[in-house]
């Protein structure tokens, strides 16, 4: 059990390390048996090596996280933070998410969940798309992101 300030600091620290693009520093926050759900609803990543690939990919997509106000659970195990996540490559996508991370007694993150839906995703800077057009644009751009995975950096 961590104190509340430590939990909130950790949520901010995760965003800071992601924004700094430091894969190893991000991974230091997680346990070896991490269960990472991003988005919730997709099969979770299990273990630090699986997570390493996901974090490295996010950083390659030039991710930037802007966390809002964190809140904690009363048992000192969880912290939740609404966050705006933007990836700038291969195309700009903005996600409104609520992240919830759970700590173990070792002070490391053992479970992380990122809740975001297709309707929480915005493509580029253009006018807001709606309905089927929005759904198609988001899924096509997510597919482009996945295709870019493992290929040389787009820059």
């Amino acid at each position, binding site marked *: 059990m961590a104190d509340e300030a430590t939990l909130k600091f950790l949520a901010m620290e995760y965003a800071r390390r992601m924004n700094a693009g430091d894969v190893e520093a991000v991974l230091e926050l997680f346990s070896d048996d991490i269960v990472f759900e991003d988005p*919730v609803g997709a099969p979770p990543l299990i273990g630090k090596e699986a997570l390493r690939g996901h974090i490295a990919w996010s950083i390659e997509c030039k991710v930037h996280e802007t966390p809002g106000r964190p*809140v*904690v*659970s009363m048992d*000192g195990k969880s912290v*939740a933070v609404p966050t705006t996540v933007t990836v700038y490559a291969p195309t700009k996508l903005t996600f*409104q998410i609520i992240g919830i991370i759970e700590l173990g007694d070792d002070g490391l993150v053992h479970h992380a969940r990122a809740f975001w839906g297709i309707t929480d995703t915005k493509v580029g800077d253009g006018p807001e798309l709606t309905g089927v057009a929005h759904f198609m644009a988001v899924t096509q751009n997510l597919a482009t992101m996945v295709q870019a995975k493992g290929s040389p950096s787009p820059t």
Partner: protein
Amino acid sequence: MIDERSRKKLILQHSQLMNAADIDGLLGLYAEEVSFEDPVGADQRSGRDALRAHFEEFATAGIKETIGAPVAGQDGRHVLAPVSAVMDYLPKGPKFVQRGWLEAPESPEGKRITWNYVLMLRAGKGGAITELKALWGRSDIAVTD
């Protein structure tokens, strides 16, 4: 499974009904079998009667929620939103003090409680809510004038 927009409407409606102190309307959003945890990590409870009593205390305190933009899980079930709320210190305040969640004010007269939480609802197949969770800790709640 209900789609993302329906779930977002559901959580916004939940907040509107809470602010209107419409407890019957609020319970109308819920399934027959319900569980709730408010705050997460302290009390897990279940049943519509317990949930009604829980909401009635908030309604008595004149709770007003300001709900932020909801987000939907891609599990077809969850919807979450950040909420800031204010309500009268009574009747909930002394219970919070007893649990060690809040410092007792010198006098409860005219005092209010402000807090921030993340509200998480889980909807069942038909779209009725089966579970409510509210995440907040000691540092997310305060007594104010």
